[in-house]
């Protein structure tokens, strides 16, 4: 499985604080090891085929997009960016 960081994602990471970067990198490590591991909490975006989100913290998620497989038929995900995504428990 391959992961390609988009330009937007890289710029976002570089502009962010060291603390946030650490959280993102921790998530990337889990994600690259196994996107479907329970801790990653990979979820599809309803109505947007190929788009997924992965949990960074309870209030932040990564946006991913699965694109065409590469020539070796490996699945490829673009890491698009991240943003606030509060999990709601009323």
């Amino acid at each position, binding site marked *: 499985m391959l992961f390609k960081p*988009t*330009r937007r994602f890289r710029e976002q990471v570089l502009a962010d604080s060291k603390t946030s970067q650490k959280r993102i990198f921790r998530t*990337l490590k889990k994600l690259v090891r196994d996107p479907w591991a329970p801790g990653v909490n990979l979820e599809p975006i*309803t109505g*947007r085929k190929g788009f997924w989100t992965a949990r960074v913290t309870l209030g932040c998620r990564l*946006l991913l997009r699965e694109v065409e497989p590469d020539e070796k038929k490996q699945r490829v995900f673009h890491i698009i960016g991240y943003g*606030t995504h509060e999990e709601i428990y*009323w």
Partner: protein
Amino acid sequence: MPTLYLEQFGISSPAAVLVHEQEESRQWEIEQPAEIQSMPQQWFREAMGGVRKLLSDADAGAADLDKAIAELEAVETEIRRLYTETMGVKREGEIVRAKVVRQQDREAVQRVNRNINLAQQWLDAAKAVIPALRDARWQLMAIRAESEDPGDAPAFDNADDLISYLVS
């Protein structure tokens, strides 16, 4: 208030109304005008209609995505803040209600009950609208990604290499 662009879609923060409600409610003796009593449900319906319109315009390429995403996030944050405040207003009302019940002031009990119900209606509407705004924002982020150049970064199968690339 961050509603300049989203107002075109009928999505506005209910802050002004709620501040008014709170000011009125804190006194717990002032009649609520009918139009404010019906506001939470009306605002909810308009906001949900606005979200649908925004997504359909975004799909058709007719929405300023960066602006809409930023404003939706600001509106969502504001509604969360108001939710917490309104919970406080409601609790305050319940304390007042206990007091007027003890005083056997039937008219005051009715007025306080009406305000508590209004706060509850607003809370119910906010509970439904907050996740809808959040999910719409993430859909807009996906729509934006569809038309965006991803850049020329390599693809990685190793997290350490990926992280090194990001910070290089």
